[in-house]
């Protein structure tokens, strides 16, 4: 049995590690630049408008005197994505690519509306104070529209080329291996489909090949993140089917297509 003192130390140690881990992953919902406090008040996706809303509150004790506040937007956020309902802004490239708001009040809200669904993540922001030619730029970080969330990918990680065993008569024949598909998507509800492209000998019936060829997908959920899907193949000819299968090489080309829903 461990001494009480050691248990206490371990408990505090665990708490400290947990706290550090928590601090390391905490969202940056408020940040201080000089005497200006910027707070992300709201991040919400409106599915029926297909818009994502970010609301920032910017406050200071001193009068802002047309101070500029800039929110960095990553390259994946095209100008067209910034909805017209956004608070008055201008695009800027300095000190980085983003949208520039002008502060006119000590307490002010700025709303950013983006087309589509956008995750939040830590992005850069800047505050520009002073007069033209004598400007001071303060740079910090705050939660905002994050670019990492917008991609879709399909990998065939195994079984890109597969063979069938010799077929000696009617029955069920399994391919020698399965195909593994990996779909990585930033959002749920992606779509996976496939179509066939047959290369068959002269006189063969494509309809017969399509009918006896069975492709089975393992169950999957089209959710955000990565999904591995197994694809199994069988040939199931009956006696009558052989009339449509003359001698030659048969290649069943399968194109797997993934896209957003």
């Amino acid at each position, binding site marked *: 049995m461990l001494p009480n003192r050691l248990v206490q130390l371990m408990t505090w140690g665990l708490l400290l590690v947990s706290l550090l881990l928590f601090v390391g992953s905490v969202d940056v919902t408020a940040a201080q630049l000089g005497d200006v406090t910027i707070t992300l008040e709201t991040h919400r996706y*409106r*599915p*029926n*408008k*297909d818009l994502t809303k970010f609301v920032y509150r910017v406050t200071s004790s001193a009068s802002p005197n047309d101070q500029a506040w800039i929110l960095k937007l990553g390259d994946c956020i*095209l100008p*067209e994505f910034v909805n*017209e309902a956004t608070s008055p802004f201008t695009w800027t490239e300095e000190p980085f690519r983003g949208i520039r708001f002008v502060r006119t009040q000590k307490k002010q809200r700025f709303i950013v509306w983006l087309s589509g669904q956008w995750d939040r993540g830590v992005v850069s922001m800047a505050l520009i104070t002073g007069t033209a030619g004598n400007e001071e730029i303060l740079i910090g970080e705050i939660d905002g529209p994050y670019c990492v969330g917008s*991609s*879709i*990918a*399909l*990998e*065939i*990680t195994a079984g*890109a*080329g*597969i*063979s*069938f*065993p*010799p*077929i*000696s*008569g*009617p029955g069920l024949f399994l*391919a*020698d291996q399965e*195909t593994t598909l990996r779909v*990585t998507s*930033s959002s*749920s*509800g992606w*779509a996976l*489909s496939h179509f066939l492209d047959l290369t068959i000998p002269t006189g063969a*019936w494509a*309809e*017969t090949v399509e009918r006896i060829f069975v492709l089975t997908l393992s169950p999957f*959920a089209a959710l*955000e993140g990565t999904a591995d899907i197994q694809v199994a*193949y069988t*040939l199931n000819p009956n*006696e009558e089917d052989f009339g*449509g*299968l*003359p*001698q030659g*090489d*048969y*290649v*069943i*080309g*399968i*194109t*797997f*297509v*993934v*896209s*957003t*829903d």
Partner: protein
Amino acid sequence: MTIRRVRALFLILAVVTSVNLCVLGVRWSPAELDLAQDPGTEETYQLLLTNDSDERVTLTIYVGDWQRDENGINDFGVPMNGARWEFTQAFSSGDLVELRYTVQLPDEGSVDVQGTFRSWSPQMIESIVGAEQISSSAIEQPDPYVSSLWTTITRSVESVDADGIASIVLTLRVGLDFEGLTIEETYAQGIQIISLDAAGGSFDTVNRSNADWITLSHPQVTLDPEESREIAMTVATPSDFSGSAWSIIYAESRVVATGDGSGTQILTLASVGMKVFVTAPGTEVMAGEVTYVREQTTTPLAVSAAFSNTGNVQLVVNSRLQIIDQTGEIVRDVRFSEYGRDYFRILPGSQRTITIADEADMPPLPIGIYQAIFSFDFGGDSDIAGVRAFRVK
């Protein structure tokens, strides 16, 4: 089956070799594009294509049309700038079937078209013959029927009105019996196609396609492992479009088998599609209607509803089913959900059918009369709902 045939088949498929292929991986960023662009303008956008595999890969990039069916399933098989008819029934020798549709001719007064048809069983693939340029000078009556062993489809231009709308007839003459038929017409440019008479088959086209507006900087790229390449996409919008139009840009891997290629083999390809929506700002109309609500079964309870998008932009719709008993008490209140989301998307001009059913462990509804209220929130001024009364016996 005779022994001879079995032996022949054994010989056909006995030589099987392994095929060496690399791992394939393709990634588009962004996953989807929703662009606001004024009519009559041209804009260029940068898309990022990445080879996620550990091998050098050549990718073919091309634009296509797509739609969703009534169950929300994506259909990538509609020919670009074209239409598709499908028939599941059997056709007999001597059958004569006529399909009618119209196309809006472009300003120059003519447009080229090509078509194919494919019977399913037994399979034959043939080209559609007849008029290959649709214009007022191509008007002619279909040929009189002549009995033949050959199955043919002939295209003829029946009329062209003052507004430039051409009426087209496809005449199917069946030679030998077959079952199942797919017909595809593909025009040289984006064009409005409307079915007048599909002769009992299904008809599909994408009349809000923007595929013809898109030009890509690269039809093909070769990428090293983990390499990314920017693809420029130029969108030239017509001067008279409103609402949204859409298409899909595929990046498709092309690989070459390195085995000896004999026997029966499967070769897989990876294709990633980036959907591209283009909307004319200020012209959006968001509108929908509930086509029907009906109880599929009462024990266990399953209620279906159909929602139609009658506007001109894609709608994102939340849906909810409430069941109310005779006392006014809400005995079921279930929100629609699929793929971990509580909404579905629906294209303009489409209908979506959804069904909400009791979970297996739910107690059945007691005997009585109930009202099913299926409501839909599509972002309009207010929700819309369909109501259906039903009895549990």
